[in-house]
């Protein structure tokens, strides 16, 4: 019964967006904030009810589909506009609306000085709406709508401070880069439709083992295309450069969109398609290595940045890399677990950094901070708790989720992946504590004219709640003993995949094509849970985290001159500090040639031939005579010539 409320969840933010968007200026800031945050709050409440409803249904029936109407149908092709509620989308909905609500509340305080306060909340609500569509859609196309919708809102919100050119550029960059990923995603959707004749999740995932050959070309292409889409949205190598630039947006946006929710959509999508990825070992390996690589790569850049938000941005890229690493080794639960805990602590970190920036009147450079712990006690404590969580200190949430990923990487994957993970963990602990030490400890380097102050309650309360969640969130997945891992039991039905029958089918399909099916029985052996390895790994990762923290302590508290002597004149350091020059590389190889090609086309073919006759002289009286001359000299003749050339080339092609 409670499940029937599903349609309301995305409806509230949509209504909020419409009211704020159209009446925002008239109803005043308080009402705008109330409506904006209230809409998401209502969504969260409804989600809780639905959650209760889902818990009450028996485990095997925990997939609920609500079709609102047939969206489009053409011939044998039909797409519904419907929602699908299962443990996976439920988990996402809970933390998206929950964390989203807190961030909305925080924004009321943070954005209060802004003139176009209403615009901000309208976008934010629209974002929540799109994100919920993305999560709740029961088919690929609806997911894609949400996918594009969040991209659009992200674009608008990054460019929110439109007076800054960098903000506009960052917005455009994010959008265009995302489009590259979206393009792959859309192709995958079309491909899926081509093969299955449907794009409903249930139909496709049910039919997948019967129609696709294990490790076959088709499934590999589809999954790789999907993964490229995920890379764009989730800022993985090579499509990650937009995320750090996206920090031009207001801080609550960074927290909500570019840390907690939207950027993890890629992980969600891959996890949602686990039935396809399970059939494509090559893609799985790719996912794992791209994830692991990004985790380390972004962490190294994070160590060298001085902008507080950029450090967090690279940290986000790196943490999402972890999630993909987990997905790639088949540890879907671990990925979702880390996604949830990451949402808690990263949202808290971003909001905390926002609080710092707010307290320092817009200063973002860590070299101009320091010793803030006395001025902003609440911000400091919550920030510190979240930092401990992300660094992986027992018993905070990050410890459990990260450790689970590392364990699975070692057991199901290989040592290289595990090595990447553990390196990333060390670097994470280091750069996060570098951030904390530079900001809150040591000598104050704050501009003497600025008087740091603690933020108002409306901002600190969400911080405290998030810090609490970051502290205790690990309880969702207590390891070691089977049955204690709440999240695992909850998500189990979604990841149930019958490998044996899939292999049987693909052997059958191969046989029909007259090919020999390789023996893959080793895939069917159940993975053993090795308690001692896990305990040992826990101890190791704990000590790694402590080592990272100690390193940061040595470098930034004990011997502050150390990093400078370390890095001075090192080309390696400069390379990392300049973010490996990847932006420049993209500019040179992709952006410039495109623009130049376009300019060329415009200048040579268009401007000389066409504009020259129309634009330049249009306003003068001499236009006619001038024009008559140019006319006789043959512009139309040129066009006609062009047509003849086209004719001849077509004729040549047709031969």
């Amino acid at each position, binding site marked *: 019964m409670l499940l029937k409320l599903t349609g309301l969840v995305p409806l509230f933010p949509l209504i909020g967006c419409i009211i704020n968007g159209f009446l925002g200026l008239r109803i005043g800031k308080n009402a705008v904030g109330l409506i904006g945050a209230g809409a998401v709050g209502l969504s969260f409440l409804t989600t809780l009810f639905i959650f209760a409803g889902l818990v009450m249904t028996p485990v095997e029936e925990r997939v609920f589909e609500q079709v609102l109407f047939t*969206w489009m149908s053409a011939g044998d092709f039909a797409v519904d506009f419907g929602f699908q509620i299962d443990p996976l989308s439920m988990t996402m909905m809970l933390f998206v609306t929950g964390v989203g609500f807190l961030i909305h509340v925080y924004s009321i305080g943070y954005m209060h000085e802004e003139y176009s306060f209403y615009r901000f909340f309208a976008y934010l609500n629209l974002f929540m709406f799109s994100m919920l569509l993305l999560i709740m859609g029961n088919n690929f196309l609806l997911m894609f709508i949400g996918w594009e919708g969040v991209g659009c809102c992200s674009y608008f919100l990054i460019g929110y401070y439109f007076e800054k050119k960098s903000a*506009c550029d960052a917005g455009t960059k994010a959008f265009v880069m995302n489009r590259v990923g979206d393009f792959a995603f859309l192709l995958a959707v079309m491909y899926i*439709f081509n093969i299955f004749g449907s794009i409903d999740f249930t139909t496709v995932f049910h039919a997948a083992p019967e129609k696709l050959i294990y490790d076959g070309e088709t499934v590999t292409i589809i999954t790789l295309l999907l993964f490229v889409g995920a890379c764009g949205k989730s800022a993985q190598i090579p499509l990650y450069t937009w995320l750090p630039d996206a920090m031009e947006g207001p801080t609550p946006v960074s927290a909500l969109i570019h840390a907690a929710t939207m950027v993890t959509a890629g992980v969600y999508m891959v996890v949602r398609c686990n039935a396809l990825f399970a059939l494509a070992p090559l893609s799985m390996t790719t996912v794992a290595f791209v994830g692991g690589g990004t985790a380390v790569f972004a962490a190294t850049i994070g160590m060298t940045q001085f902008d507080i938000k950029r450090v967090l941005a690279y940290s986000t890229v790196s943490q999402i890399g972890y999630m993909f690493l987990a997905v790639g080794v088949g540890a879907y639960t671990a990925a979702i677990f880390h996604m949830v805990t990451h949402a808690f602590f990263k949202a808290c970190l971003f909001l905390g950094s926002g609080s710092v920036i707010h307290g320092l009147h817009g200063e973002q450079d860590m070299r101009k901070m320091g010793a803030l712990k006395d001025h902003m006690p609440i911000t400091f404590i919550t920030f510190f708790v979240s930092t401990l969580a992300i660094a992986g200190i027992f018993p905070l949430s990050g410890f459990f989720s990260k450790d689970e990923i590392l364990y699975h990487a070692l057991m199901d994957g290989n040592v290289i992946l595990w090595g990447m993970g553990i390196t990333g963990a060390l670097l994470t602990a280091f750069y996060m504590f570098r951030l904390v030490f530079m900001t809150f400890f040591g000598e104050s380097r704050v501009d003497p004219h600025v008087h740091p102050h603690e933020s108002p309650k409306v901002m600190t309360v969400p911080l405290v709640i998030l810090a609490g969640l970051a502290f205790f969130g690990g309880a969702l997945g207590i390891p070691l003993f089977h049955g204690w891992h709440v999240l695992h039991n909850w998500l189990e039905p979604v990841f149930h995949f019958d490998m044996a029958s899939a292999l049987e089918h693909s052997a059958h399909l191969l046989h029909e094509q007259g090919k020999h099916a390789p023996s893959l029985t080793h895939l069917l052996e159940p993975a053993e849970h090795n308690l001692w390895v896990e305990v040992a790994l826990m101890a190791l990762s704990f000590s790694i985290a402590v080592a990272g923290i100690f390193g940061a302590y040595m470098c930034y508290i004990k011997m502050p001159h150390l990093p400078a002597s370390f890095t001075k004149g090192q080309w390696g350091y400069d390379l990392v500090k300049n973010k490996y020059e990847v932006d420049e590389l993209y500019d040179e190889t992709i952006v410039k040639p495109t623009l130049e090609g376009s300019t060329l086309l415009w200048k040579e073919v268009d401007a000389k031939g066409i504009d020259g006759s129309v634009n330049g002289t249009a306003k003068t009286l001499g236009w006619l005579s001038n024009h008559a001359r140019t006319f006789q000299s043959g512009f139309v003749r040129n066009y006609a010539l062009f047509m003849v050339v086209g004719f001849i080339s077509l004729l040549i092609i047709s031969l």
Partner: protein
Amino acid sequence: MEPITAPAIDLVSLAPVLVLSVFGIMVLVTDLFIGKDKSVLVFISLTGLLMGAISSLAKYNLPVHSFNGAYIVDHLSVFFTFIFCISSALAILVSVDFNKREGIKVGEYYSLILFCTVGMVLLASATDMIMIFLGIEIVSISLYVLAGIRRNDPKSNEAALKYFLLGAFATGFLLYGMTLLYGSTGSTKLVMIASAIRNGGVASEPLLLMGVVLLIIGLGFKVAAVPFHMWAPDVYQGAPTPVTAFMAVGPKAASLAAFYRIFSEAIPQLSPSWEILLCVVSVITMFVGNLGAIMQTNIKRLLAFSSVAHVGYLIIAIIAKNSLSSSALMFYMLTYAFMIFGTFGIVILLGRKGDENLEIENYSGLAYKHPVLALSMTIFLLSLGGLPPLAGFVAKFFVFSAALKEGFLILVIIAVLNSAVSLYYYLKVIVFMYMKDPVKEFDITLSPMTLFVIAISIFGTIQLGIFPDSIIALAQAN
């Protein structure tokens, strides 16, 4: 002497053509007896278009053939007739205030639009080369005059003259192509041509192929496919804005319908040879259209290039030539009509007498002065760029799916990539509207008719994006 019996003509099936012609003549005559206030003409022409649309929907057993199989009424033609009537009505609605403002006091304007619509209906219903040619000529001649209707504006003159000269040139290609087809198969009827090719009754294979190439050029010119598109930016820019909008939708749709009919009904057997040609044309059309649009600073030129790019996508539907692709073509053109009239409606609103505000720069800060207009523009542009859940996305999705069904994977990849590129320049306009400070005051008179068109277009763009099902069912009814 035997009495000559006239060929069977089903007057009901011809109703739209007759109604539109009669109303066109009525407008012409009425204009002679009224003064400077042309609102009566607007009323008459809108009534005519309404009646034309209604008469096209008259229910009978489709398809109906007339004129010895030179004319057909089937779902394709009914649907397109409907699109033509809607788009012409929208064109007249956006013209009213524009013409008042710009001092275009010519009554012929309205009758030309009606006559042009007659030509479009003929074009979409023709199953004979001669009838197709007739339709194309009626449409083109009306357009030549419409493009130059602002007699005292040199740009408008230039547009008309260029369009006319090149159009005549292209007509030559088209006619030559038709002749070669007739010469090598012995018939001008699409069905007979097809059967001649099927049964080996082709006199000369090379001449037939040459005819196909010439047809591609003639029709390619009419739909503004690269490399026969050179007229489009000039003419779009020079023609009065409502005429530009009109040109970008109706006549283009009509030519595409004829294009589709010829290639899918007369020469499907030759598809191995023309598929590659159309693929090449489609790909370069998309690239030139999109890359050309990126650098434009004038909104009308930008939209001209964007419409060139859209033709590139639409040719894909012709290449695919399955049942899905014909309905995709219809659906695409309907959504395109709404998007284009919405966009141009806003462009018209933002102009004022003597200064049309056509530079994209002039759109700076529109979002602060007129948030609803800016939002509408954003919706239209994003829909043109193919962003879900707007109508443009559904339309593109259909066309691409149809092509994918026939296995044109590479072509679809290129098309999707292109539509990704296209967002770049649509976004440019949005960036100006939302993220720049105004360069000058907006002095806008919100004329009710134009606002009405924008409202309808918004409704269409969103409605067809979220609930496209009923329309698709209609397009699919064959």
